């Protein structure tokens, strides 16, 4: 993985978001640089849900924030609806951001504890002066209803009075207040109980249809992504491993890392337990990533070539792109 390359880019007029050669690095000490995202490219086509999957520390959250310019990346382009956000002056960026909203992992920390639900959802409408008081109140009620909350019961309560699942519903209502075209969900369900996860995933699917959204969905769990995505991108240490539609990726993963990720998902059936090819150890430090393919240190199929040369993304079956010298056939 480690792979670079742009073979998977579709470059169509339908692209809502196109990211090219995005690089994000942080200086943590005098000569220690964390290479969080290294020259990564992808595009998201209208109506699509792109899932970005990888372990903690693979750079997926950093990537999402860099797309939103929070903070801006060190290099690369982020083209949203034909505009490169990295070149926009601050004031234009502020308004460009409204067409791309984010849902965060920690539902409680993403809501100001001092504000009532009404204030929370009114906030974006107020910033952009959308309608008068009555129109805004009506919109807030509609948004709350659409995420399955009773406006009369919740409007005057504060975030700490709600469960994680309910907070996530409030976050979704708030994110949709400005009618964004794109929603970036950063691990929106990983802090929730399994039974609540399903509710939020179904809600997101429903919202996507109702509001005609294009989505980027970030997760560490391939199972969560399966029900919701139309394209899956697997990341490791700031690079892409594999990009494929879900029906191909889950049935025939081509990258060793994808297969290892699939094997780690617990299966609620005692007769179908997979105990082979589990990943051992932890990812190496992003301050000093391995040469060549970044996954080679934990890969069962690694060869000498993997240390020397960085694999490039290539198409191994229709729509399935993999950055590996020795893909699983």
């Amino acid at each position, binding site marked *: 993985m480690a792979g670079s390359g742009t073979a998977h880019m579709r470059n169509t007029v339908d692209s809502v978001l196109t990211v090219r050669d995005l690089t994000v690095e942080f200086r943590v000490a005098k000569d220690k640089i964390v290479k969080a995202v290294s020259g990564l490219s992808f595009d998201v086509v209208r109506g699509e849900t792109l899932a970005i999957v990888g372990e903690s520390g693979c750079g997926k959250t950093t990537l999402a*924030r860099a797309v*939103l310019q*929070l903070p801006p990346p060190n290099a690369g382009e982020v083209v949203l609806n034909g505009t490169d956000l990295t070149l926009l002056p601050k004031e234009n960026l*502020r*308004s460009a*951001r*409204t067409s*791309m*909203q*984010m849902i*965060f*992992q*920690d539902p*409680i*920390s*993403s*809501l*100001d*504890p*001092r504000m009532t639900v009404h204030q929370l959802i009114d*906030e*974006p409408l107020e*910033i*952009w002066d959308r309608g008068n008081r009555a129109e805004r109140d009506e919109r807030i009620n509609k948004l709350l209803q659409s995420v399955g909350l009773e406006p009369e019961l919740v409007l005057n309560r504060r*975030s*700490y009075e709600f469960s994680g699942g309910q907070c996530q519903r409030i*976050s979704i209502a*708030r994110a949709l207040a*400005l009618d964004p075209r794109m929603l970036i969900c950063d691990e929106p369900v990983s802090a929730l109980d399994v039974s609540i996860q399903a509710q939020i995933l179904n809600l997101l699917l429903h919202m996507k249809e109702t509001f005609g959204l294009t989505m980027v969905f970030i997760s560490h769990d391939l199972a969560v992504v399966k029900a919701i995505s139309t394209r899956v991108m697997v990341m490791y240490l700031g690079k892409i491993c594999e990009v494929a539609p879900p029906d191909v990726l889950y049935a025939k993963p081509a990258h060793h890392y994808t297969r290892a990720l699939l094997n780690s998902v617990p299966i609620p059936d005692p007769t179908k337990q997979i105990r082979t090819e589990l990943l051992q150890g932890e990812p190496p430090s992003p301050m000093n990533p391995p040469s060549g393919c970044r996954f080679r240190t934990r890969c069962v199929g690694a060869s000498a070539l993997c240390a020397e040369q960085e694999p490039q993304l290539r198409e191994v079956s229709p729509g399935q792109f993999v950055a590996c010298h020795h893909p699983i056939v």
Partner: protein
Amino acid sequence: MLKFKELSKPTQLCVLWIGLMLFLAVFGSFLPFEHWTFVYEDDLGVTPFSPGHILGTDNNGYDLLTSAIAGTRMSIFIAITAVGLGGLIGSALGITAAFVRGKVDLVLSTAFNVGLAIPNLVLALALVSVLASNVDMTVVVPIWRRVMVLIISLTIVLIPILGRIARGATLTWSGREFVTAARSMGMRDSQIIKKHIVPNVLPALIAVAFLAIGVVIIAEASLSLLGVGIPDGGSWGGMIARGRNDLEYSPHVLYIPVIFLAITVVSTNQIGEVLRNKLDGREAKV
């Protein structure tokens, strides 16, 4: 918010005492007493609970109750003004430092640390003796100038203390995801500070401000005792300074202002502590 009835008995007493002190500070001069500088020539050094002088008089014939009320006005005025100014300037600097980060933060944090490294009393002492004294020793420095200088020097002492607390709290809160969320909704930084940072940082600052009021009252008293504060019994510290000479013959002259001062400081500390616990509890819920 906190309800008076839910507070513990001691805390209720503290709140009542502070209420009384505020009342005396504001309305003390309208009470039907002689002016505190009035000298009762027939009642010198009368002990407390004497007829006409509940708290007694000192050896110069000043009534201690009216003196204490006047002292309340001065001490509370100085404390609240200094803490208010220090809090305002300190939190503005602290919040700016933490929100802007980078070089601004480096400069301001270093300034705070330098400020904290200088002993408070020495700094105040130096400022007062430079600013509030005349070259010509025979010309009396007007009292308002002494008060202003005292307030300014106490404010300078408080800025780094409160500034650092504001900076720390801002760092915590601005790392929360709701700040990122607000940014992604297109909120301006100035609005983020106004709507998300200040309201969350304020409660912590208010709790510390109560503690600071106690510290300032004591600092003012110490300066008066050292002879650079409010002269001639105009504040609690001034009363202590004047009364210490008579400790042997009329100890109550010293005890009265000390008791006022002590109960007030204990009360502000207690209220500050209760506020802080209350806020910690809310934090734990979040």
